[in-house]
């Protein structure tokens, strides 16, 4: 799966968590938590959503790697490549 495809999945899952947000305005290097006002429950739903879409297991200790959009894409790309 290409990084662009992964990015599309990430944005789709984020869109379900923050439906009111304009995701086209997301700054890829800035913290998602600050931009989308997401809390720990949103983060858990995000991880569950990624698991359903990409069939990846994301351990809790790796949550900090999901802090930004770019971080998510890089982390997931590595995870999918290793699988």
């Amino acid at each position: 799966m290409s990084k662009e495809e992964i990015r599309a999945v990430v944005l789709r899952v984020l869109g379900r968590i923050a439906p009111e947000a304009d995701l086209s305005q997301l700054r890829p290097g800035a913290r998602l938590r600050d931009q989308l006002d997401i809390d720990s429950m949103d983060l858990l739903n995000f991880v569950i959503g990624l698991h359903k879409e990409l069939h990846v297991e994301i351990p809790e200790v790796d949550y900090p790697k999901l802090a930004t959009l770019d971080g998510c894409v890089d982390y997931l790309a590595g995870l999918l490549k290793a699988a």
Partner: protein
Amino acid sequence: MAEFVMPQLGADMTAGKLLRWRMNIGDRVQRGDIIADVETDKADIEVEIFASGIVDKFLIHPGEKVPVGTPLALIREEGVTVPAAGAVPPLVRTATALAPVRATALAPSIAVSPPAVAPFPGRLHISPVARKIAEEQGLDPAILTGTGPGGRVTREDVQRAVEARTAAQEPPDRQTRMRQVIAAAMARSKREIPHYYLSTTVDMNRCVQWLAQENTRRPIADRLLYGVLLLKAVALALRQVPELNSLWKEGKAMPSADVHVGVAVSLRGGGLVAPALHHTDRQSVGELMKQFLDLVQRARAGSLRSSELSDPTITVTSLGEQGVETVFGIIYPPQVALVGFGKIAERPCSVDGQIVSRPLLTATLSADHRVSDGHRGGLFLAALERLLQEPEKL
């Protein structure tokens, strides 16, 4: 014949608008079935019925806004025959005697300034164009304030009055109404409830460690958040100080047999609701977590059920994720207590005579002095702290 009435979904609700019926005349309903959707100032709610039987008659049409307690439908017991045509059951007459309150009742009245000093008493000082527009708009020129030379009412004055009237007649949006009802409930709370506040620092080390370990063995969808440990601990601590799990009704505290912890959920776009996690004390943390996830999701999607809004016996609010250290909450009437949690932060503390770094959390209790005192409140916080030292037993 039983009446299904507009429920009061929280102390701040005085009226509701029926959006639609979920049932038809003749349908069989059971206690707990969702029978209608109702719009309140805070959210659209799926309203459950608390009687079983057959839907006999609808008394209110979708789109009507009626006060809390107004009969909306009649539910006939199964096996009871329908009254003959023309025979009007007494309950129907009772229902129709209650005049529905229309949505426009919420609109503020138009504030009209007294006219400026009239230069010619008895004679209206207004331009012909302004008079014509006022007549077309159905405005009485005599009540308008003139800003023209000598207090003359100008066309702009009339247009301003028309705009002010239009703005006043438009019902406020959901966000505005939500702020109004929250303000009303909180003002009532501060006015009527003699609050007292207590706080304690909880060492969350065991919870943090247990949770990290526990989540490694759980499937992703079953992972726990530390918030669910706090909710369960609050529910169990209430068993030890049950007077905090009461409702203040008719001038006295009525202890609640069940513990339904209301969880303050911030809504996207602003505002909050605090629906109940039913029987919080009787569920495993795994079950509670599933319900917690579902409840928050539905609260934010606007699909809560009536019992979830009417049943909370205490409220828990956690603002730690926003970086808040200590929460001084306002009790939500008719509840008599609220528990607040701040953030978990690594701080130095003394353990067995050694200064160590520990994840500490400030827990606060806001409680009603009519029902409990600081001693009992302190016992509650001590019980809460004790429970959080043994997360595996929650």
